């Protein structure tokens, strides 16, 4: 891996340091920005899935009850756990990566 290029400290701080920041370290404002943007994406996905179920129901395809059933299906449990673990590993890789 190449080492990061040399920047004078002000340049390295980036635009967030020039604009408003509420936390002492402007990086924290940026991180919060990422979290809020992710929240927006998650909300959009949740809403769209809900709308999809409603749209299917209107077409006479009732999936909601089946979804509830599958969620508690013991036969699916191991595969879902494996999926979840893989998701968490991907999601949290940055925490332990050196």
């Amino acid at each position, binding site marked *: 891996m190449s080492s990061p290029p040399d920047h004078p400290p002000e340049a390295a701080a980036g635009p967030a340091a020039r604009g*408003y*920041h509420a936390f002492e370290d402007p990086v924290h404002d940026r991180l*919060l*920005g990422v979290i809020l943007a992710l929240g927006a994406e998650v*909300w*959009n996905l949740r809403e769209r899935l809900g709308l999809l179920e409603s749209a299917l129901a209107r077409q006479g395809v009732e999936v909601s009850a089946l979804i509830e059933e599958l969620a508690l299906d013991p036969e699916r449990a191991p595969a879902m756990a494996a999926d979840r673990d893989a998701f968490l590993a991907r999601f949290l890789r940055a925490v332990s990566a050196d």
Partner: protein
Amino acid sequence: MPELPAPTQEQAAHFDYLEGLRGYNYTVHVKGILDAYERATTADRAAPDTMDEAGVIIAPSPLYRFAAATQHLAQKMGWAAARRSLEGHTNQLADVLNRMPAEPRGRLVLDPALELPEYYTERDSEGRDDIHLVPGGYWGDPLVGPVYERGGALYRMAWRTGYTGSPPGALVAFAKGAPSDDYRRILDLGCSFGGLTMALRQAYPDAEEVVGIDISSAALRWAHLTAEERGLAIAFEQRDATATGYPDSSFDLISGFLLLHELSAEILDAVMAEAYRLLRPGGHIRFLDMPPYAALPPERAFLQSFDCEGNGEAFWDEFLSRDFKAVLRACGFVHVADGPLDYEEPNYWGTAALLRTGEFRLENRWVNQADKPAG
């Protein structure tokens, strides 16, 4: 106002999210800050007398930092979302913006030669955020009218329903509250999209002329289209409020909404001197803006001061710390008075970016009023 293109599901979900995020920030975080402040000042020390002292208690708290950062970020996300929802429709919007009414009741007079003042155009190059954090401020984007319409409704937490009352009831109440009910010529300074100008037109249907001036041609165009659609006869003219070019004594009521805090002390002095010149003897001025810090409890004044740095309001602090009544007296105005606007509005969240708990009215609407001596 001309109809805006409908947002997609994804854009609508994004607007809903931002309204929800801000609502939560106000009702849980900001309210939490005020509750914690009250506990701190009643428990272990005497309540501070000044907003700076209140800030020493409030500013370091994680909750304040979190609320301030969230407000700032959500504001930026809101304007970006509003603009993005219109970007796919620029041709359609250009048609709307260019389709001037065939038989207008009022008029639109633009001045392409008008030089925009430096304080207005140079903020970003100073490393400051644009006004209200809108990219391009009021002037740099031809879509500013539609963007404000949509983003403004989002700011008022009412993007799905639109802002109730059109023009908003508070502006009509303010317009009607002027000392006389018999004005011939009325001028609205810094009229933007014509919110107050339309309220003045409705409040004084018999006035000979109602004129709104602003330096942003894009804003005036939108104001004109909106007023014509509502059948209101208003003249919108592109002029600088510091040097309008109208003859002395041309108006008998001069008004403005949220203009004062947008101007530096120097420019504001020039605007007030110009207003004095334009007013006929015995005429009235009446402005609606934010209350001075001195009128608020210290902790609220501190939260109100967030807008300066946190919401791109470069002259907010300067104006709200100033004795504006003294400025008016120095210009020669008499019967100088100020106070909160007497108007109750259910579901009104408030204007100052971090004081929107929806529970305290005074902080949002403040009237300054004075007369030119009858001579």
